[in-house]
Structures are given as C-alpha cells and as structure tokens.
C-alpha cells in the first residue's frame, strides 16, 4: 500500500508540470504582452527591446519555461513583471483566504444537503422529498455571481450593512500583513456571503448523492436487523445511514474542488476578496506571466493532491478495491 501511495505521489509531479507547461504556452499565445503596459508613457522601441531581453521574453518559449523551472527548483517562484512583487509571497498571502472560502462553501453545501437528503430518504417520493430536491436544484441553477449580487443587495444594502460587502479580515494569528486586526467574528462576517454564493451550487449534487447512499444503506440487512431489534426509526437512520452515506459523499466533494476553484474566481471578484481567484484573473488579463504561472502552479498542485487523496480514501474505505 505504501509503495502505491509513493508511486502515485511521484506520478503527481509530471501532471503538475504538464499543467504548468500548458498554461505557460497558452499565456504566451495570448496576443499582446505586458511590456507596453509596463513602460507606459515612457515607451520606446529600444526600451521595450531591452525590457524584453531583461525578462527573457525574446527567448523561445521552451527555453523560457526551462528558466522558470530552474528558478522554481531553487524555491524562487519569480517576480511579477508589472509590480516587481515576489510571486511566492503573494501566493502565500492569498492562499488562506481562498482556502477558507472553499472549505466554508463546502460546509454551506453540506448544511443544505444533509437536511434535504434526510428528508428525501425518510419521506421518499413524497412532496417533501420533491421539494427538498427542488430546493437543491434551484441552488445549482443560479450562477454564482448572480447569487452573490442578490446576497449583496439583501444583506449589505437592504439590511444596511448587516454583512460587509467587500474586503477581508483574517483569523487571529494568520494575518500576513503588518497592519492587521484579527478577529474571528469579523472574519466570519466577511466570508459568509461569498461562501453561501459559492456553496449553494454544490448542494444539489451532494443532496442527490447523500440521499441515494442513505437509501442504499437503509435497505441493507443490518438496518432491518436493527429495526427488528426494536430501535426507534430516527436514530437508526441518522446514526447509521448518515454516517455510512457521508463517506462516499465526502470523496465526491473532493472532486468538486475544481468547480469551487473556478467559482471562487467569480465570487472573489464580486466581493473584492484578496484571494487566489482575484490573483489569477487579474494576472491573466494583465498578461503578468510570472503571476499566472504561480497561480497555475498552486491551483494545479491543490487540485492534483486533492484528487489523489480522494482516490486513496476511496480505496482505503472500500476493501473490495485493491490496488496492486
């Protein structure tokens, strides 16, 4: 087993590299480069040529990629062409924000999915069941940004600033800046609307899965035995069915991270959150190559690692599946 894990970990590396290479090449194929924006009004052809040379932008693409890799091997993620800021530092500053957003979105999704699934499983094929699934279905049909706008209107405008409309307050102790107030309460207030906007879309899938898994478990022998023993209905369902149903659901949640990362881009932009999402999209639009590479690297890394964990968890939990 351990050998299998090690082998998978090693296999992760070429995948990540492949992703960063593809992003590298794609970014270079976008028409226009950042040099014009960088030089601004002082633009002259000679200066532009000099700048391009300085940043290695005139070398062949693969050579540039090789250079990036070489620096990466030394732990240097490069510096942004436009702002001169070291990429790794900015990535590390932004990562906790997006991480918290994604985790809490999942929590929101579960908070909707679990009750809906329980209702659906217990009262199968009744109106309650249909309503629960429909509610989850509604969540998945609203684009994240529209949900965000509606939430913004409701809580920030109509209810006069009950929840802050933008910005971020870090959890105490995690603030990477010099000037910082850490506060759990303020942090929660800032992350609540974005997490809801991002999480409601995931609830539908989770509801369906949870409900199906719960139904399966309910039908199995040992539940009927428990019932035969005279145990009451609800605790039976909640304790055994839910617990067992959560396991495959959690693994699927891991697969949802892809949608969450993408949705985070939109939600972070709307709520002006200093996370990886805004980092990435600003970099792409500004053609800030180094920043995009940093963003691609951390995203690919997170994605691939999570997939790996999901696969491994799956195999661990289901003894029937054996990996050579």
């Amino acid at each position, binding site marked *: 087993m351990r050998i299998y894990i090690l082998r998978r970990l090693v296999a992760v590396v070429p995948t990540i590299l492949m992703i960063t290479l593809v992003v590298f090449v794609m970014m270079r194929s976008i028409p226009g480069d950042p040099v014009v924006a960088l030089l601004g009004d002082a633009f002259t052809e000679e200066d532009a040529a000099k700048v391009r040379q300085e940043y290695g932008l005139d070398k062949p693409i693969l050579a540039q990629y090789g250079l990036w890799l070489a620096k990466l091997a030394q732990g240097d993620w490069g510096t942004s062409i436009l702002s001169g800021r070291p990429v790794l530092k900015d990535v590390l500053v932004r990562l906790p924000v997006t991480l918290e957003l994604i985790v809490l979105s999942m929590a929101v999704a579960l908070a909707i999915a679990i009750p809906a699934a329980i209702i659906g499983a217990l009262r199968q094929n009744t109106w309650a069941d249909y309503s629960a699934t429909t509610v989850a279905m509604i969540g*998945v049909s*609203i684009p994240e940004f529209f949900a965000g*706008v509606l939430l913004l209107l409701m809580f920030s405008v109509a209810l006069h600033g009950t929840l802050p409309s933008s910005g971020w307050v870090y959890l105490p102790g995690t603030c990477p800046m010099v000037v910082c107030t850490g506060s759990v309460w303020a942090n929660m207030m800032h992350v609540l609307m974005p997490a809801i906007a991002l999480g409601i879309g995931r609830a539908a899938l989770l509801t369906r899965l949870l409900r199906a898994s719960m139904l399966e478990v309910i039908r199995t022998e040992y539940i009927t035995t428990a019932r035969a023993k005279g145990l009451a209905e609800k605790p039976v369902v909640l304790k055994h069915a839910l617990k067992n149903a959560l396991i495959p659901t959690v693994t699927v949640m891991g697969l949802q991270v892809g949608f969450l990362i993408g949705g985070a881009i939109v939600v972070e932009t709307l709520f002006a959150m200093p996370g990886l999402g805004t980092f990435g999209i600003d970099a*792409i639009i500004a053609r800030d190559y180094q920043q995009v590479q940093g963003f691609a690297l951390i995203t690919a890394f997170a994605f691939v690692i999570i997939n790996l964990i999901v696969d491994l968890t799956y195999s661990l939990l289901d003894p029937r599946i054996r990996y050579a």
Partner: protein
Amino acid sequence: MSTLRNVELPVVGELVDAAPATERSESPLAQALRRLRKSKTALCGGVIAMALVVVAIFADVLAPHSPTASDQNHTFETPSRAYPLGTDQLGRDMLSRLIHGSRISLAVGVASVLLALFVGVPLGLVAGFYGGRLDAGIMRLMDLILAFPIYLLAIILMVIFTPTAGLIGTIKVVGAIAIVRIPIYARLVRGSVLSIKEKEYIEACRALGVRDRSILFNHVLPNSLAPIIVTTTLGIATSIIVEATLAFLGLGTQPPTPSWGWDLKANVAFIHQNPWLALFPGLAIFVTVLGFNLFGDGLRDALDPRMK
C-alpha cells in the same frame, strides 16, 4: 453541475443492459418513457426547455422591438405597456433583448455540448475499445483537460481566442466551453465500453468476423446511450451557466449581440434604481438552467430507476 466524474454512471449502462426484457411486455426504452412521463420534474423541465427553443427560433417574430436600436428619449423606462420589461441605459427594449438573447444562450448551451459529444464520444469509444497505448494517450490528454478547474481553462481559452461579437464570437465561446467538456464524455463512454468489452457476446462477434466498427456502433454505443443523454441534458445547463459567467467576466460573446450574461453584468451596476434590468436576465438564465436541470434529472431517474 450535476455530472459526476467516474463514480456512478458507468454502472447505469450495465443496468440498462441487464434489465431483462422478458420480465414485462415493454422494452427498456418504453419503460423509461413511461417513467419519464410520470415524473413531474421532467415534465416541468421539459416544458421550460421547449419554451426556450420556441422563443429562440421565433425571436424575430416574438420580439416587439429591435434589441439593438438605441433611443435616447426612452432610457431607463420602468416596465410598461410599450416596454413590458423596461428599457436599459441606451433605451433598448429589455424584453426584445431577452428574447434575442435566448438565441445565444441556447446556441451556446446546445452547440458546446454537441461539439463535446461529437469529439468526446468517438475518443472514448476508441480509447476503451482498443486499449493499450492509444487508450493511455487519449486518457492522458483528457486528464490534462480535467486537471484544470472548468472556469480557469475556459477563461484562458477565451482570452487566447479574444472575445468578439456576432457569430464568430459565439463560436469562440462554444469552442472554449466544448473543449472543457470533452473529457467528461470521453471518460463516460470509455467506462461504458470497458464494462462490456469482456462480455462473451462481444468476443463471439469478433470471432464471427464482425467488423470492429459495427460492434462499436451496434452494441457498445447503445449501452452508453442512457448516461450520454443524461449528461448531455445536464451539460446544456452547465454550459449556459458557464457562458453567463464568462460574459460576466467580460469574456463571452461581445455586444452588441444581445446576451443574457452580458446584460446581467452591464445592468448589475444599476441595480438600485432599475433592479429589473439586472433581475430579468438573471431570472432568464436561472429559469432556463433550472428547466434543463429538472429535465435532465427526470431523464436520469427514468433511465435508472435504481437511483430512486
């Protein structure tokens, strides 16, 4: 949004194949249709989807005004007889814009999914059937695409393609979204193929000298049909949301081609004085996506009663 990767769906193919046709006097297809008719969600969704198609096709006839003609004397009108959904900053009738916008949403939704289908299904068939190096190669490529969060890849692709207006602009969006969806179909079909490849009757066919192509088309493909249909319908819903999100980020079909996502984005800024300008496109997107989701869900339930 509701598509799974490799968790459940390959099993569906097996089930449809395994349902004994002799148990009742109906074929599996008829059984499925009957369940579909009974399902309220599918009915609801189907009606919405149909309505959208009708509106899109007859947009020119249904729209009371031109969606692009600006009128400086009638800007920001509240909904009224003449302008049932009001007018926007340029005095354009919102209702007409919504009606014409359905074309973009529908076109992008359907075309992107169909394109993904036409590329992904053959890839999956070939990969699953022939196995070996071909399989490894194709799946590597699919994994690479799947490794990207859906929006990230779509965004980068659109920035490369450079968003434009009109038909070309829409084609670019279709292409970007399709590329992102291809691996889903490839994997789906491949899984289906793998599950029946080893079956005896396939080997028998081969032994009898039946050509690979007919085996693929006559036996393998029909088994994947159910999950393909479900995935396609749900995929349309996802595509419409992705298109709207791209438009919101400024990377979709560009104006002046009317598009729901663009109108939503442009009018969100006026949401305080003229909320209907943003709410209506948002509702349009929501209702359409909901329709396809409901229909797709109903289809899934009809085709795989085990899930109920």
